[in-house]
Each structure stands twice: as structure tokens, then as C-alpha cells.
């Protein structure tokens, strides 16, 4: 997913475009790559620290940040061209972001996984497809660090990069109508955890006892864009001990 050879977007100027009458998208590139991700993170951090009047919220994605604002609030402050006004704020923030040496956030989140068994019904399929043993699949999945590029699709659902290509397997032909919360899956070059029960087409290889989406918490998503993730294999006993909610 990260290709250091190909990052023309990492230095190109960010492109701004309106998203309807109360949003705009700041586009940093058009590929999933680390330098672009870092620019997205740096700009998001600037927005977080210096929100402008009328800002509602912002949503970072792979190569863009979408900013939602309220034109009414800006007009109340005497700004009669809200879009133009917001683009001034954005350009200021972009200048700050580009000079900022944003390092990858140091936060590493360990995700314990009970691989296989009743919670990983597709683990053997993945092993067969990859022509590996189940043990090798687990070993490859738990090796190294992954990067959370963005959160989307469902509350707390991470789009994670860094899966070993040897265990990249296609999605199921027919998606399951119910994938239980906590399921750990592989779909193409992506891997991740389903925070809530949803329909889903990934191959399920295990389950985590952690609750990725805690609606009562101040920050309800365990993972944030920019976090590093490590998967750790645990036993059934350990799973029961660490389990945070009813399945």
C-alpha cells in the first residue's frame, strides 16, 4: 500500500473544491501512500488546534480532508461570501500544516485476537488460498505494524494499511448478512476489525475481546486515523479474561 517510489502528490499543492454549500474538500493526492497520509494528518491536527468560526467538523480520509462549516454562522459575523472566507482560513491552516513536521503519531494500539475456532470460520480458507499453514497465516498477520489510514464505513471501523501480500485473499462471493462485533477479517489487501455487527464480505480469521466502539466514552472509537496497530494472538482463556462486552 505504501509505495515510496511514487509520491508526486506529497509535494503538490493541496487542491480545494466545494462540497455543496456548506462543505469543502482539501485534496492532497489520489493514492494511498504514506507521505499523503502524513499531510492529511498534519492538516487535521492544525484544524483541531485552530478551528475557525463556523467550523462544524472535519473528516480525514485516505488522501483528503472534508471540512463542514455553517455559512449562516459566517454570515452572522458579517462575512457575505462564506465559501471564500472559509478558503482563506483553510489556506492559512495549510501553510501551517506544510511547515509542521508532523511525525507519525506514536500511539500504538495492540489488538488481541483469538484466531480460528468458532470466531474465525474462514481462517482455514485463507490458509488454503495462500497455500500456507494456519500457523503461518497467524504469524504473518501478527507480524509488524499496521497504519490506520482513516475511520469510516461504521463507527470506529479502521481502514488499515500494511497487510502482508501473502495473506491478501479475495472477499467472500456472497457477503455475510451479519458479521459479529469484534470480528477480525481480511478483504483483499485490507485487514481490520468490525466494531459493531454489520453485513460484511471479509474473510473472518478471528475475534478480539476489545470493544472498538464505546458509545459512552468521550472518544468513542478505540482507533483514530494515524494510529499504529499491532495484532497479538491470544488463547481462548485470555480472550474470556479480557472480554469487554457480551457477544
Amino acid at each position: 500500500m505504501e509505495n515510496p517510489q511514487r509520491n508526486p502528490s506529497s509535494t503538490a499543492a493541496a487542491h480545494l473544491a466545494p462540497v455543496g454549500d456548506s462543505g469543502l474538500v482539501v485534496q492532497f493526492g489520489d493514492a494511498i501512500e504514506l507521505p499523503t497520509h502524513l499531510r492529511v494528518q498534519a492538516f487535521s491536527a492544525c484544524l483541531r488546534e485552530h478551528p475557525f468560526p463556523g467550523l462544524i467538523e472535519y473528516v480525514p480520509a485516505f488522501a483528503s480532508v472534508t471540512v463542514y462549516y455553517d455559512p449562516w454562522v459566517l454570515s452572522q459575523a458579517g462575512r457575505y461570501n462564506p465559501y471564500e472566507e472559509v478558503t482563506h482560513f483553510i489556506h492559512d491552516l495549510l501553510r501551517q500544516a506544510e511547515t509542521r513536521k508532523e511525525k507519525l503519531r506514536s500511539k500504538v494500539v495492540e489488538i488481541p485476537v483469538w484466531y480460528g475456532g468458532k470466531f474465525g470460520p474462514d481462517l482455514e480458507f485463507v490458509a488454503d488460498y495462500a497455500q500456507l499453514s494456519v500457523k503461518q497465516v497467524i504469524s504473518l498477520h501478527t507480524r509488524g505494524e499496521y497504519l490506520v489510514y482513516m475511520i469510516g464505513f461504521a463507527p470506529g471501523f479502521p481502514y488499515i494499511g500494511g497487510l502482508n501480500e501473502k495473506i491478501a485473499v479475495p472477499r467472500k462471493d456472497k457477503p455475510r448478512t451479519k458479521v459479529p462485533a469484534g470480528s477480525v477479517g481480511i478483504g483483499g489487501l485490507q485487514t481490520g476489525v468490525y466494531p459493531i455487527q454489520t453485513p460484511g464480505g471479509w474473510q473472518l480469521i478471528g475475534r478480539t475481546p476489545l470493544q472498538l466502539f464505546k458509545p459512552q466514552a468521550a472518544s468513542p472509537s478505540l482507533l483514530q486515523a494515524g494510529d499504529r496497530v499491532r495484532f497479538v494472538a491470544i488463547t481462548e482463556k485470555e480472550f474470556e479474561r479480557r472480554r469487554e462486552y457480551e457477544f
Partner: protein
Amino acid sequence: MSFNILSPGLLTTVQDLGRHGYQKQGILVSGAMDAIALRVANLLVGNPEDSAGLEITYLGPRIRFEADHLIALTGADLSPVLNGERVKMARPVWVRRGSVLEFSTPRSGIRAYLAVAGSFAIPKVLGSYSTYLRAEIGGFRGRALKTGDLLPCIGLTPQGHKLWQALAGAYPAKDWGQAKWTPDPQLYPQPVASPVIRVLQGPDYELFTESSQHDFWHQEFTVTSDSDRMGYRLQGPALFRDEPRELLSSAVTFGTIQVPPEGHPIALLADHQTTGGYPRIAQVITADFSRLAQVPLGQKIRFQRISLEDAQCLYIKQEQDIQQIKKSLQFKIENA
């Protein structure tokens, strides 16, 4: 002090103006589909406009009021009836304990809003009372209302009580009644069966073929029956891109019109996902959200292009109109 749900109707949920600030964590905004209607309903009963109300979809519930209440109904006219008598839309309605509200034939629009003075005694989740059905949080126990539910109410506010007294005082023998006044209907959107929806070009508009672009502006699209609070699925001419290639997921919002590969657009609504990877051909202007949200399934819509400047002027005009409604209702309530 509660609403006793004798039957829930098709889909009746607690909503406010949405759960903002958590989209970066994948959490939907939700909230009222026709936010203006909910705001007006709240103002009519003296509530802050962002208070929680009921969103009632097409086939309404039967509700018995277990206390004296002051309510208002806005949005779709689903033929509301109180103790057997027709209720008028968009005015404060006082009801005595034991009264039963029900609905019959939908006459215009698809979503009605019921506000009650004081609102509901339910907890906020992540800063909002809105029901997030998929994640089963917010609203009343994270779900749509069911038969037998007792939806707890806070009870009449001092303002609500004053208005209740003023309206009901003259009719000791009646069990309900309503104010003679209503906000100027010119000041807020009224449901239209087959509206023209104004949009801005979306970020991916140029990717579509010329004939698809032409069709988008000149053909009608039917809202199909598999539409829901997440989005309207539209049936019309299929829209295609010059060269279909995968796009990176990025943020989508209320009113984003995206086109999956099979070519039939989806207009995203209140329960839209936070991000999506389909090309975005257009974006509905905020001033037309209410109109869009009130289109009944099976009806047709058309799209019309307007400029960003005009869209923002319409947005500001709509807010000015709401402020005007707010002022005139405050005056009415204070002098009731």
C-alpha cells in the same frame, strides 16, 4: 408522565438536529430528515429548536398521552386525529391526559414531526438525542418505538404551561384544542410531491460521460421503494463514467448524490455513512434538504443546477426565515 405507544406506526424514532463532531470516528450524524420541520415544531411549543422530537414516517403511530401536554405537528400531513377529531398542522395543540393521537391517510409528504413542550426524559448519547439505528444508540433505547413503550416526558416547561393555560383555560369541558395561529407557510419549506431539487456539481461530475451529464439534468428520477433514512435510491437513466476506475474513499454527507457502478444514483440522507468510494455527481443544496426528505417513495424528482453563491444565499435566507418564525412565535407565546 409519558407517551404510551399503543402502536408504533411504520418507523417512529426520536430525533434531534444530529450528532455532530464524531464523523471522523465513523459515527453517523443521523438527526431529523426534515430538520426545518422539527425546528418549527419545537418553536411552536416553546422549546429550544434543537430539542428532541418524534420523526413519524408515512404511517403514523397511536399514542396515548399519560399527562397533560402541549404538542405540535409539522412536516408531512399524515392526517393526524386526536380523540377522533382532525388536528391542524403547524400550531400548538393542548391535550388533556388520556387523549389519543392517531394518523390516517398520508396527504402530503412522508415524514411528520411531533414536538412536545419540555421534550423527552431520555439520555443524550455523544451529545445528541438522535436514534442511531444501526449502532443501536441514542433516542429511546437505541431503536424505533414499539407497541407498549412508555416514552418518558420531562413535562410542561413554564413557557409551555403558560401557553397550555392560555389555550385550554377557556375550554374546561374539552379534552384537547389548538391555537388559531400558525407560522407563515411562506417562511419554511412545505412538502411537494415531485419537486425540482437544486444541486451543485459534485467533485466527480466531470468523470461522467456527456450523455450521462445531460441525462442527469434533463431526465426524471423515481425514488424507489428500497430507499430509507440512509438514502434515496433513484431509478432513471443509468449514469456512467468515461472510464470506470476505483476511487479512494472520502467523506460524503447529507445530499451527496453518488453513483455506484450499475449507474443508478443514490441521494444520501440523514443516516448517510461518513465516507464512501462511489463517484459523487452532485450535491443537493442545504435549502432543499427538507423538500428532498419529504418526497414519498415512488414519486419523481428532477435536478437543477445552481451556483455556489446562490446556494449559500438560499441557505442564509432560510435561516433568516427561521429566525423570523422564532421571533413571531416567541411574541405569540409571551402574549398568549
